[in-house]
């Protein structure tokens, strides 16, 4: 898609604005204007706070800018306006000090409640360790339903097709890349997505190996810095199976823009199947590896 079809786009934009307050897109859309409400309870609360703060600002803006416009229209010298000489009014000044305080309290109150909830990582059924490297992610499944997971972990990075297109002067069209569900996934696709069960509270422990990164999937409602030497924790509980995309959000060097995240949320049963298969595969790998290192050295070779 090129910039050409602006009228077609304008239609899409109007539709997007209409949808802006409700629909949840899993991934960024052309002409998207607003946050989406996401796919977790947290992300919906965050969206609610965002819209509350937004409408408060709109309200104040209408009053302040409205008054300014009235002043600019009515009190023009060219219309014969004569300036008054008063320069203060204590009562008025008190009013516009106190009212903003009240408005802010009404914002801070729900924000505090959501924040308390967001930081509560207790009662998770599963733990995933996220380690950030320049410029890829490593996911290790630590435990699931109280039992340790046996060696399931992998590196997740920009897929090779994307990597070719994104090179300077590749001459390849960023619009040529599409995912299976028809999403233009340029720079938002990885070789191995993070597979998570839907409907399960997952705790993440997040760290980094080299520089600071940040793990961000907008649909989950938060980002969290990944810092070498520090382990941060966060949690999510995804409602709906689906593909949710994000990317590194903290400047981490030359390929900071090429470090996407893809979360593939699947139904619980499917996840358990997948996890068992991964554990089995890793056990086979492990056995092969052990066997290899135990091969007796042929005589006469060093």
């Amino acid at each position: 898609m090129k910039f050409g079809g602006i009228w077609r786009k304008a239609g899409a934009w109007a539709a997007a604005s209409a949808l802006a307050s409700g629909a949840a897109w899993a991934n960024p859309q052309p002409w998207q204007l607003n946050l989406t409400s996401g796919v977790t309870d947290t992300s919906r609360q965050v969206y609610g706070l965002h819209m509350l703060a937004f409408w408060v600002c709109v309200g104040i803006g209408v009053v302040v800018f409205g008054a300014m416009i009235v002043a600019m229209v009515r009190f023009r010298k060219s219309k014969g306006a004569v300036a008054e000489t008063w320069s203060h009014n204590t009562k008025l000044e008190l009013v516009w000090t106190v009212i903003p305080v009240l408005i802010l309290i009404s914002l801070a109150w729900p924000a505090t409640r959501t924040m308390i909830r967001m930081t509560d990582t207790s009662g998770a059924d599963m733990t995933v360790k996220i380690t950030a490297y320049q410029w890829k992610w490593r996911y290790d499944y630590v435990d699931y339903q109280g039992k340790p997971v046996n060696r399931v972990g992998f590196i997740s990075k920009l897929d090779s097709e994307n990597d070719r297109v994104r090179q300077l002067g590749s001459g390849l069209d960023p619009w040529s890349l599409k995912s299976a569900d028809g999403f233009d996934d340029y720079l938002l696709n990885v070789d191995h997505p993070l597979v998570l069960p839907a409907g399960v509270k997952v705790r993440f422990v997040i760290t980094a190996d080299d520089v600071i990164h940040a793990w961000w999937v907008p649909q989950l409602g938060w980002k969290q810095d990944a810092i070498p030497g520090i382990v941060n924790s966060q949690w999510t509980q995804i409602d709906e199976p689906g593909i949710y995309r994000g990317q590194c959000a903290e400047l981490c060097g030359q390929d900071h823009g090429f470090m996407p995240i893809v979360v593939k949320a699947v139904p619980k049963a499917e996840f358990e199947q997948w996890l068992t298969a991964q554990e089995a595969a890793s056990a086979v790998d492990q056995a092969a590896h052990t066997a290899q290192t135990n091969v007796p050295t042929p005589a006469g070779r060093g």
Partner: protein
Amino acid sequence: MATHAATHDHHDEKPQGFLDRWLFTTNHKDIGTLYLVFSFTMVCIGAAMSGVIRAELMKPGLQLVQPYFFNEMTTMHALVMIFGAIMPAFVGLANWMVPLMIGAPDMALPRMNNWSFWILPFAFVLLLSTLFMPGGAPAGGWTMYPPLVLQGGNGIAFMIFAIHLMGISSIMGAINIIATILNMRAPGMDLLKMPVFVWSWLITAFLLIAVLPVLAGAVTMLLTDKYFGTSFFNAAGGGDPVMYQHIFWFFGHPEVYIMILPAFGIISEIVPTFARKPLFGYKAMVYALACIAFLSFIVWAHHMFTVGMPLGGELFFMYATMLIAVPTGVKVFNWLTTMWRGSLTFETPMLWAIAFVILFTIGGFSGVMTAVVPADFQYQDTYFVVAHFHYVLVTGALFSIIGAIYYWWPKWTGRMYNDKWGKIHFWWSVVFANVLFFPQHFLGLAGMPRRIPDYNVAFADFNFISSIGAFGMFFTPFMFFFILWHSKRHGAKADARAWDGARGLEWTVPSPAPYHTFSTPPLVDDSLLAHGDVSH
């Protein structure tokens, strides 16, 4: 009368040679001019860098530069604009106007004043030379977070020394301003009768002295971490990368107000002039400035909501940040009320001031939104934040500086400029600044991180629009230069009181202001002050 005293000065004893006049000058007006010319040069350099950034971001895919060079551009753009353009411009305005506004013959420490300025060109030669070094310019962002910044080449050392020099320059400038304001006011110019611009600079100067040493300390620790084997911020050696961020933002947040408080002062001078009405709530304006300055020290961690602070920390910094909206709101309401029932005209400086009030308020709105911690977990490090601080710094700080230059230009040069061209410059800037920065709100909310050279195709349209805005903005420094150059050559003669509603001591001396003013202290007449009778 002040005019009387001023005209009897032995003015026009300017040094004759070029070097004598400019390199060895101790005259506050000449040094003010030097600062402003320097700042203008830096604006052009910084704008060229943003041109590279927006050109690369115009379309998805990499077309022009390698990602590493892109990071050099974003880093240098910020350092040049913050330390080279905005801050020196405000110091230049302070140099020119503070002595004229308080009835002082010059700055208190004129030789140090010369040194404060002449350090700056050397600092920026050091900084900009890194672009031509092997390993390139610093590319870790202007915030210089370790460990990333330490991966850079030896350009890092040059950047750190450049920052030390800028810091020394700013601290000396701040000492000078404080010494001038506290010691050199004309009799009768009580503290609570000073113009709000002078107040804003008094408070800003204290902020500078308080926080620039902190920045110097932070970057020195980076230097020893990189070259002398220390581990202040190196986790492997027992250090803490997050500690750097706390130290940096303890400087960085007051720094934000260093770049906006003088703007508040400027707007508080321009609005009453063109409303022909005293500034509303003078004392509240001064207290609000002091209140904002105090709060600026206890909100730093709102730049770091996602580093993993404990809940108590997150909540404290949210509440403290939200509180700043209260004194800031007071200022906006007071400007509005100053206009209310005034007798308004819309000369060029007034247009910039009104645009400032509206657009800075929009930047303030997104500031309140980002203060809401849970929502900031979405906004942090996205284009929403980029939009927020460009509204505050470009349509806020920069617009106020341009407004100030249009306002005081007749006093400096004795010439008026073409008001119609000034208005074209204004409307052009307002339109393209909004085309440039407003769509960035949408990009951030849709999920585009900042500091990336390339992006998903869903972000293509708004990036294209934003780049169009950037190319439009690129013409504005040249328009400005042409308008001022034309005025200097061919402008109509300006009166001593160039604007009929203007109040304050600076308008009692002739235009152009003689080389030496107020050698004899003027008599301060309360009715001549912009804020009128402040006795109750």
